[in-house]
């Protein structure tokens, strides 16, 4: 990849994004890496964006495209809420996102996961991949990192989890994807949405569980050398 590509490539959030329903609401999760070519332009991005008080969207793909789509949808939903006199439903929010994605399918390059809670249907997750298909799912995964999670979710997902089980599942999944996907990295952000409201959580990269061939982070080699045991290798 030449220098030009690194300096002038469009900002893309390779990304891992996840949305999961549990008995009572939804948990949305994402990594925090935004790249231009091979350079990490932002290592602490916020990919879980608010649309209304009770509906959030996880963004993946082109940073610009996903931002402009969320901005339009937030604008429309704001007006819709005023007219309706009550909070917008997750279905309406997802449908607005789908409308923009489908009608501009030739131009846009963004995959989105809309999740939220409303009083009619409770917690709902809608996946809106490239192309503008709208698909309601008990859980959704997206972004380049999601390729590594299909098998994981086939095995680990179950219906009717508690809030803590769901959140732990999301954190574990994003963390596994970060381990293998170069376009995902940084911290894991989660947003829990239910009857009570919205809670944001932050899991820094160095506090996540270690996976295969990953080592415990150290301050310096000197600490290892100066520690009583184990001894350096003797061959």
């Amino acid at each position, binding site marked *: 990849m030449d220098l030009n590509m690194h300096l002038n490539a469009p900002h893309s959030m390779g990304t891992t994004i996840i949305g999961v329903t549990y008995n009572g609401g939804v948990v949305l999760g994402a990594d925090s890496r935004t790249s231009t070519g091979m350079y990490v332009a932002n290592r602490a991005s916020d990919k879980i964006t608010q649309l209304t008080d009770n509906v959030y969207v996880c963004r993946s793909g082109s940073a610009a495209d996903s931002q402009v789509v969320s901005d339009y949808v937030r604008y429309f939903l704001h007006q819709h809420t005023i007219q309706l006199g009550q909070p917008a439903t997750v279905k309406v929010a997802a449908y607005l996102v789908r409308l923009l994605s*489908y009608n501009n399918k030739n131009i846009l390059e963004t995959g989105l996961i809309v999740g939220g809670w409303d009083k009619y249907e409770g917690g709902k997750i809608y996946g809106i*991949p490239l*192309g503008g*298909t709208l*698909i309601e799912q008990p859980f959704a995964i997206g972004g380049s990192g999601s390729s590594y999670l299909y098998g994981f979710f086939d095995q680990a997902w179950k219906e009717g989890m508690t809030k803590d089980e769901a959140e732990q599942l999301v954190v574990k999944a994003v963390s596994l994807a970060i381990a293998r996907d170069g376009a995902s990295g940084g911290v894991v952000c989660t947003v829990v949405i239910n009857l009570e409201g919205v809670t944001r959580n932050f899991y820094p990269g160095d506090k996540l569980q270690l996976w295969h061939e990953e080592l415990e982070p150290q301050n310096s080699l000197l600490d290892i050398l100066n520690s009583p045991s184990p001894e350096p290798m003797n061959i």
Partner: protein
Amino acid sequence: MHALHLFIFTRRPRPSSSHVFCWKSDVSSSYGSTLRYKNVERMKPIGKHSLLGASGEISDFQEILRYLDELILYDNMWDDGNSLGPKEVHNYLTRVMYNRRNKFNPLWNSLVLGGVKNGQKYLGTVSMIGVNFEDNHVATGFGNHLARPILRQEWHENLSFEDGVRLLEKCMRVLLYRDRSAINKLQIAKITEEGMTISQPYSLKTYWEFSAFENPTQGAVGSW
């Protein structure tokens, strides 16, 4: 883009004069080579008399369903006792698909439209470029290559519903073995003058116990 395959066929039961249709499709939607979604309903009732099945791009199928919703709504608003039958809906879809093709912006689907109205059965298909025709059995995608030859041999005018289901299941099993985008989760729809039912998704048993399968390269080590 989500690639799917769908498969339909028609016949009528021996004793009664009403016509019965039998359709099958699996519930998968792929994304390239990944079997991404495993619970997508690709068959939908249209109005009182018809059933639409689709393969190809799901977002375009969802848009077509919206167009048809509007078509049926306006038809109902006339409130004149008439209703659009499968032939009319098929014609409408053909026009839509062909006109989009002429603008070099096709709806990327293969559609199958069938139904029963006033005792008359109808089964037709439209492709993304507007090619359309009716027949006693139609299929999309791999179904055209794998299922239709079977149907040509074994379909006849006086199939019972049970024989029809067995025949379709035979075809779907072949597709399961030989189409990479297929999954083992399918639905069958039955249409009669009285109405239509779409089954819950179910799975078929498959057979792998041929002795030749157990040690396939015994006679030619290193081959595939």
